[in-house]
């Protein structure tokens, strides 16, 4: 029994197309049942996320026959299931004909593909970890309804191990690739802990809000919002469970805060060295992280020369995020090497696997002896 995969992802198709094929979680067990009853697959797992819809199947059929059957099944399901996760506005439109949008892989590429997906190598944000959780959920669902057996159980367990191995032994998941998470990481490098830190948001812009939210989620104590429109400051402060202050009072808060995020539309620097120097003295030289995401910049770069002041502007943050991404990209070859090595024993052991029943008569649920824990 060999493992094949068919599906479409963000790499091959736009969201308008992917969403037509997406399976609602509640419909997946019945879809898997139908798939096995059709005789195409002896075991199957359906992975349906916003970025991909994939069917992993263990089948006795020749790959080309299995692909035809799975493609038909996928197209038919897109008409029948019709309950979507991302955006169902276009759900009822007709499914167009396909070219390169749907990919179909047989062994060994199917195994390599699953390992890559589980490790985040095929994700939109390279190296992200959310996909691993989604694969675990998809597998657990199929396993719970007894649609997996010895072959897929072993394969998915191995995929989880490979993903863990890659996360531990490579830099594919190291570092942050968004401005907000880079800012949080910076704060982590400066302060013992983010718990109890006060954050001042000057200017209630969107990126500033994102950074503030990211800091709050990592344990920052409270947010103070200063904005030219006091009403907007109050709204944002209420959302972030912080407090709003009049814009002209923000410098008075420097005694208390540890992190300041500035994103005003001011055409000139609102904070410069002569203004910050006395404020730092009154802070007794406690470290201060300044994040200037405004363009034009709100904070004079000269303040970075002050002791215990760490100033990062939008370019600095984006440059760090880009460096991380570059580093992750450089790790791809290494990860692929690991994947090939880890897939080899699985492929070699295929000949020794027990033959699975398949076809409509066998689709009652797999034997308990063929089930593995879904962890």
């Amino acid at each position, binding site marked *: 029994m060999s493992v094949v995969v068919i599906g479409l992802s963000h790499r091959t198709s736009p969201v308008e197309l992917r969403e037509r094929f997406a399976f609602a979680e509640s419909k997946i067990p019945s879809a898997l049942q139908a798939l096995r009853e059709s005789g195409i697959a002896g075991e199957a797992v359906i992975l349906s996320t916003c970025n991909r819809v994939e069917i992993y199947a263990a089948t006795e059929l020749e790959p080309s026959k299995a692909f035809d059957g799975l493609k038909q099944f996928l197209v038919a399901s897109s008409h029948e299931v019709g309950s979507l996760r991302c955006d169902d506005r276009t759900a009822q439109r007709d499914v167009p004909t396909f070219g390169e949008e749907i990919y179909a892989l047989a062994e060994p590429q199917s195994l390599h593909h699953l390992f890559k997906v589980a490790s985040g190598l095929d994700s939109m944000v390279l190296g992200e970890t959310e996909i691993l959780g989604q694969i675990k959920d998809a597998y657990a669902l199929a396993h719970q309804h007894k649609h997996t057996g010895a072959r897929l159980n072993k394969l998915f367990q191995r995929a989880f191990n490979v993903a863990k191995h890659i996360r531990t032994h490579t830099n594919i998941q190291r570092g942050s690739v968004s401005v907000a998470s880079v800012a949080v990481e910076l704060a*982590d490098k400066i302060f013992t802990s983010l718990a109890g830190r006060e954050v001042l948001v000057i200017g209630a812009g969107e990126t500033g809000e994102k950074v503030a939210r990211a800091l709050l989620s990592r344990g920052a104590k409270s947010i103070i919002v200063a904005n030219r429109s006091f009403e907007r400051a109050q709204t944002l402060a209420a959302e972030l469970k912080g407090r709003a202050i009049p814009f002209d009072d923000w410098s008075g808060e420097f005694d208390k805060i540890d992190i300041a995020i500035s994103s005003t539309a001011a055409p000139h620097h609102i904070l410069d060295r002569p203004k910050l120097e006395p404020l730092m003295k009154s802070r007794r*030289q406690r470290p201060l992280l300044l994040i200037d995401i405004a363009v034009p910049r709100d904070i004079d770069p000269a303040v970075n020369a002050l002791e215990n002041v760490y100033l990062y502007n939008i370019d600095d943050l984006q440059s760090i995020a880009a*460096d991380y991404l570059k580093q992750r990209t450089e790790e791809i070859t290494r990860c692929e090497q690991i994947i090939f090595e880890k897939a080899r024993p699985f492929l070699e052991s295929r000949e020794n696997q027990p033959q699975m029943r398949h076809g409509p008569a066998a689709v009652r649920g797999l034997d308990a002896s063929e089930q593995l824990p879904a962890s």
Partner: protein
Amino acid sequence: MSWFTDRHFFLLAVVLYGLSTVYSVFLWRKGFRRDDHVNYFIILAGVALHTLAMTKRGLTFHSCPVNNLYEATTFLLWALGLACLVYSLLPRFKFLCAFTAPVLFTVGIFALMPSLDPPHGPKPDFSNWLRSLHAATILQSYGAFGLAAAAAGMFLMQQHDLKFHKLRAMLSLLPSIQRLELITLRLVLVGFVLFTIGLVTGEQLPRPEGKPYLSDPKVIWSALLWLVYLELIVARMFFGRSTRRFTIGVVIAFAFLLLTFGITNYYSGLHHQ
């Protein structure tokens, strides 16, 4: 195995410290990204051999092995290595070994010079436990100061990288700079308390005939060192001296200690008998 003396054990320990130094350079070049425990285990093996060397020497002479410059230096290094191993157990502090290894290695090489380990003469006739306490606390305080200097070195590197927006600051597995500063200050405080106890007990020791106390070079040097560390602590804790200046001071103070320790010991009438 009788030909295998305590000095041989110490030599092996220094070889391991050297290996750790080489590995530390590799870790530094790699930006302290991978925390693979290798350095920790090399230092652990080195300290184990070092302990064996000191135990063997102590058992041979039935006293705490601090009777000459070789023994005093090896005791100092042992305290430093042991403290490093303990502090490295703190989260993200494994790389402390990388900063300590070069000190252990270079000072270890210095200690191995044969002239530092002359045959023992007649033992001075005074209370042994007080002398042991004096020597142990003083040398352990040096160990704490050394470790503080290593933590300060980590702080300075990390702070420089953060100030100049180096990616290494983000990629390295070093602790936050605030934590490094806290550890440095605590180690200096521990060292200072031990040093003070050592000086007080030293003053209590009976002195040989004709050996002045206050004019002894080692006593003057120790008093100066005590004042230097006192100034560092007071300026940081009560006068808001910047962390950077404080940590630079800690590194300089320990460098001064290392460079002058042997000389003052050599010229000390009280210690060089």
